[in-house]
């Protein structure tokens, strides 16, 4: 994000979030009761790093009618999508987040001095060694031992960047020269395999363990490794393939040792820095594989697993797994045959295609600041300025969700998770809500006692569960009484 030179980023971020929410939404606080960012999935709490706890105490915080959280984190605005059950919905509310940021800029500028400008970039580094993550969160069965989860995910996370890297001009790792362009924004900043840190010694697998749900049943896998994607297909594959791999891990059919890499931290950088995708990395078994090879192996395993029918009960006839598999196979085939044919679908290819065209036409060297600017502005969420949005307006990107759907998703929650209940209550009863969080709403009905409505199961509080109840009780007092009765 960047704003008027003499105004701090924190202030601009606060104005963006503050101006977006109507007054009744602004007064609903975030409920921190269940949050503990220092709890570690490996079973201990970190005594150090007290400031990490305070980072959750956002200066300005909104819970939106679409079930999302929109707040100031450190010095930037942060948007968390509502909970979704499938990758396409995740794309939809992620795109709605971009539109919410863009709308916030318009509103914030109305109260700023004439000539003020605010830019918001959905990316992961400022090109000067400062990085900030895009966090994916997956609900995972608590029964899976964390060590096994981490070991199983490491090689997958190292190699999935071939389709979900957002692309970056240059390299931000001290002492590394000669990298013109790389697949991932984030690989330069990875220093460890597994850990709790998110701002220093960033790990491939983060161990933060706040499920925002019943901790006996669930853990939340908090992924800080991924890039912010602009392409619908890239976001779709990023979360879709990861969710499928998690299914196999939960069912204990993925042998963590079969894929393990000799040096994951080195491998993630080597793979990122070779756009020809021919770099091989050493597996623990001694064989050398490319990232695309390893992704084919994962895909074959997932296909076999789904064919076996073992997941049928858990998936309840959902169509997204087969759709993700088809897209995954298509993208891996194209990556092998002609990566540039994925322009408009995969961000690192789309950006590279644009940079190459610009570079050749304007006769620029790779170290030209204009190319760095194109890299940055690709991620601008303002549809008039953002270069991804320019490509989209020109019909050069594949769309999985329409403008009309995005407009609705800015206001309305997904219907098949607890985000439905949260968002609907925010839309109807914001005046009587004191606080909200992922897993609870706190009502003040009579001005005397606070009533806490817990939502510990992310798959309850759906439209199917609560629509009739919400229709029957237009007054919040009746609703809370019915819920507690």
């Amino acid at each position: 994000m960047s704003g008027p030179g003499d105004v701090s980023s924190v202030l601009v971020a606060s104005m963006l979030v503050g101006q977006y929410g109507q007054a009744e939404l602004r007064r609903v606080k975030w409920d921190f009761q269940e949050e503990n960012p220092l709890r570690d999935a490996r079973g201990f709490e970190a005594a150090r790093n007290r400031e990490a706890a305070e980072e959750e105490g956002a200066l300005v915080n909104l819970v939106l009618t679409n079930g999302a959280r929109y707040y100031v984190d450190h010095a930037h605005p942060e948007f968390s999508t509502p909970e979704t059950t499938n990758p396409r919905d995740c794309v939809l509310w992620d795109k709605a987040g971009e539109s919410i940021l863009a709308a916030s800029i318009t509103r914030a500028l109305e109260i700023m001095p004439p000539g003020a400008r605010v830019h918001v970039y959905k990316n992961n580094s400022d090109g000067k060694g400062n990085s900030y993550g895009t966090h994916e969160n997956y609900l995972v069965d608590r029964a899976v031992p964390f060590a096994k989860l981490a070991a199983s995910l490491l090689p997958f996370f190292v190699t999935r960047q071939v389709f979900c890297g957002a692309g970056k001009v240059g390299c931000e790792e001290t002492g590394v020269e000669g990298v013109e362009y790389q697949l991932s924004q984030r690989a330069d900043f990875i220093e460890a395999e597994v850990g709790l840190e998110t701002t220093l010694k960033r790990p491939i697998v983060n161990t933060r363990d706040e499920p925002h749900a019943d901790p006996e049943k669930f853990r939340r896998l908090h992924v800080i490794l991924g890039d912010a994607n602009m392409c619908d297909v890239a976001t779709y594959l990023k979360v879709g393939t990861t969710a499928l791999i998690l299914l196999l891990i939960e069912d204990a059919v993925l042998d963590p040792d079969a894929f393990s890499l000799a040096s994951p931290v080195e491998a993630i950088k080597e793979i990122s820095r070779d756009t020809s995708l021919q770099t091989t990395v050493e597996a623990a078994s001694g064989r050398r594989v490319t990232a695309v090879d390893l992704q084919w192996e994962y895909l074959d395993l997932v296909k076999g697993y789904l064919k076996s029918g073992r997941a049928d009960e858990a998936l309840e006839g959902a169509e997204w797994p087969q759709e993700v598999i088809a897209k995954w196979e298509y993208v891996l085939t194209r990556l092998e045959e002609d990566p540039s044919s994925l322009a408009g679908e995969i961000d690192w290819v789309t950006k590279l295609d644009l940079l190459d065209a610009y570079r050749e036409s304007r006769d620029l060297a790779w170290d030209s600041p204009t190319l760095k600017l194109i890299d940055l502005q690709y991620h601008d969420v303002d549809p008039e300025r953002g270069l991804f949005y320019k490509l989209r307006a020109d019909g050069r990107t594949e769309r999985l969700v329409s403008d009309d759907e995005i407009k609705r998703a800015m206001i309305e929650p997904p219907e098949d998770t607890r985000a439905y209940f949260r968002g609907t209550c925010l839309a109807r009863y914001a005046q009587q809500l004191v606080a909200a969080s992922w897993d609870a709403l706190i009502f003040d009905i009579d001005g005397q006692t606070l009533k806490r409505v817990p939502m510990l199961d992310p798959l309850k509080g759906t439209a199917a569960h609560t629509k009739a109840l919400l229709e029957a009780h237009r007054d919040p007092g009746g609703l809370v009484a019915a819920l507690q009765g």
Partner: protein
Amino acid sequence: MGMSQSERQQKKRKAPPEKEGGSAASPEVQQKGRRLKEDMDRLLDEIDSVLEENAEEFIKNYVQKGGQ
């Protein structure tokens, strides 16, 4: 679609990634490629019209500290 691992490896050996005259891409993909390139010049002009002025200065001033 639906190749086994060994079929894929054979295929890769036959068609090295250096590409032989683009024979690997289907006509549909080639056509898509042409279409994307055709309007590129017009698009690049449009991009020039929205790019921030003074790239060097703009990039220098963009600093975003404090992120996870």
